[in-house]
């Protein structure tokens, strides 16, 4: 019996062939890259400047939303270790989770500050970037360092030498004010007693278009940034407003109401060649250009409620893009072309910022349960960040956010109402 049972033992399968197997892995999670920015070294006469430079740099890098700035209080490395890669104990930096290490020296040389940047890859244990800068202020120094760190990691230019124009209301006064991208260092560019609205930068940063009532009705004016002079660009019909330059700076699209019908018009930048793009009897307004200048998105209530539409730059092939919500406004096309940000009122009568794909029409929400009003989004020139006005702190302030809304920063603390932010171009 035992022999019989033994004869029925299973035959196990032979071993598989000895060739190597491969598996595919995709769809990773993306997370911010952990950076360590220890206090900058300095000479005796520049300690305050070094501290301000380091802190401004940390704030800038955190604002990008692609970096996580590690708390300097957690650092284990010897603060006196040098700058040569051989002198740095990278294991100490790895222990606190750093993937990149930013060190710098700040010195005063007459009226200028000199900054020496050293950027290291912690895991590789080597220096990967070395730069020397000369700037007048710690903030300017920090912004240049931030731009170069961003450029190194993302292969894209940083945005910290750009500015954001906003409209600020005072007692009987309206101002166009330019803030640094981090919401600080504001500069008044223009001041008027008349109502002014909707600033928009020329692609080279030399001019800002805005809508003004100074002529008795809404018209399009341009402000020369260098000297504050203004000129009338166009004013037709009962009102003209919301002018935006095409990405090549050669054309201007705007809204005009002629004989009671609001439509989208285009003129050449020199004021010639006026063309009407929409003719629907409904209200058509708020144009924004695609980054290739071939299409325009706008708002129309031809369906009975304001929705976002898209058309060719010559006015042909107008099609509705949004079908959710019933009050969608202020579209702004991303410089990357992949998304259009807009303001919408939801079923709770709250205004929030959304993004929609111009190709699929899929809408994603950026803000939610963060105050009653988040509105008028504008894109950074790299298309990675949005700025919009928000009342979440009680007064309207500027908020900078990534397009998903997962990382938002309130960047201003103004006492006067501000709104209509327009993010300016990269420095030429």
């Amino acid at each position, binding site marked *: 019996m035992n022999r019989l049972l033994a004869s029925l033992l299973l035959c196990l399968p032979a071993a598989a062939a000895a060739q*190597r197997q491969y598996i595919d892995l995709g769809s990773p999670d993306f997370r911010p890259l952990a950076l360590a920015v220890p206090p900058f070294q300095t000479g005796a006469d520049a300690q305050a400047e070094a501290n301000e430079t380091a802190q401004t740099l940390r704030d800038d890098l955190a604002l990008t*939303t692609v970096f996580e700035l590690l708390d300097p209080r957690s650092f284990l490395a010897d603060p006196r270790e040098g700058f040569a890669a051989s002198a740095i104990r990278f294991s100490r930096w790895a222990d606190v989770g750093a993937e990149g290490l930013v060190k710098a020296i700040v010195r005063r040389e007459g009226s200028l500050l000199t900054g020496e940047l050293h950027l290291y890859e912690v895991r590789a244990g080597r220096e990967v970037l070395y730069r020397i800068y000369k700037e007048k202020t710690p903030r300017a120094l920090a912004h240049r360092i931030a731009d170069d760190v961003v450029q190194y990691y993302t292969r894209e230019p940083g945005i910290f030498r750009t500015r954001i124009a906003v409209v600020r209301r005072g007692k009987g006064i309206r101002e166009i004010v330019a803030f640094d991208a981090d919401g600080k260092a504001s500069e008044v560019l223009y001041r008027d007693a008349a*109502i002014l609205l909707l600033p928009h930068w020329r692609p080279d940063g030399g001019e800002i278009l805005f809508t003004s009532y100074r002529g008795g009705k809404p018209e399009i004016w341009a402000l020369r940034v260098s000297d504050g002079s203004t000129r009338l660009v166009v004013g037709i019909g009962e009102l003209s407003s919301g002018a935006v330059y095409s990405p090549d700076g050669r054309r201007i699209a705007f809204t005009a109401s002629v004989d009671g019908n609001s439509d989208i018009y285009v003129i050449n930048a020199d004021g010639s060649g006026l063309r009407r793009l929409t003719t629907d009897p409904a209200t058509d307004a708020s144009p924004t250009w695609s980054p290739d200048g071939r299409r325009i998105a706008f708002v129309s209530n031809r369906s009975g409620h304001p929705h976002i539409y898209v058309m060719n730059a010559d006015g042909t092939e107008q099609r509705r893009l949004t079908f959710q919500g019933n009050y969608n406004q202020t579209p702004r096309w991303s410089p990357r072309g992949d998304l259009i940000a807009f303001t919408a009122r939801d079923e709770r009568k709250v205004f929030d910022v959304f993004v929609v794909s111009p190709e699929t029409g899929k809408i994603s*929400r950026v803000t939610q349960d963060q105050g009653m009003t988040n509105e008028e989004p504008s894109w950074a020139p790299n298309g990675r960040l949005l700025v919009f006005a928000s009342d979440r702190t009680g007064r309207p302030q500027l908020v900078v956010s990534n397009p998903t*809304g997962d990382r938002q920063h309130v960047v201003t603390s103004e006492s006067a109402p501000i709104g209509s932010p327009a993010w300016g171009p990269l420095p030429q």
Partner: protein
Amino acid sequence: MRAVGELHRPDRLWPVLLASLAAHAALVSLGVLRGSGPPIDLGQKPIVAKLVRLGEQRPEHWLPRRDVPPPEAPPAPARVAAAPTPVPLAVPSPKPSPKAPPPRAPAPPGHGNDALSRAISKVRRDQALARETWGDPTGSPEGTATDASEGDRYLALVSEALQANYRLPATISDQERMSLRATVVLTIEPDGRVSSLRFERRSGNDAFDQALERAVHQTRMPPPPPELQQRYRTVGLGVNFHI
């Protein structure tokens, strides 16, 4: 020893037992030789099925809501106000009479500013606030998902373990995300320990390659089955990483 007179009955147990054993052995052999189940495509993502919550369906024409609200934004850092540079007031043109702002679409009916409309708006808002959860009439009382979404399929244990640690820095640009690829070869010990990692093909992006090394070192590999231990220790296992 049988008692006298007891009926002699032939013993049929052994043939039956032998036949049963043979049948069982044949079935087991058949199962082993044909493999342990349907072939698994290791390139496919795992499918996770979610149960849709039982409830009323959220109206399709409403704007979407996030399941996970955005985190709170930190306040603006304190700043020192710079001395303002005087900017002259613009020379006034003929005094403008106050006009309405650029045209906005007329408010839908029932959404005016009168007391009744405000009351109706408040009631609608309260109803919307009270009705926090949405689902599907065909959902499950134990469901947690707002709507049905695509599922994932179970991968082999190694893929699953690596996937959990496959994280890349957000600094990698969109353009590079389209093209970055790398292949590593792992030698895996019988206890699951990765004894060596080498790049068969680098991506050209240091941040990406370092992230792959990190993912492998952070992963606790399952021990290979006995029949494959020799292979993974000598020939190794290749992993093609892409985005």
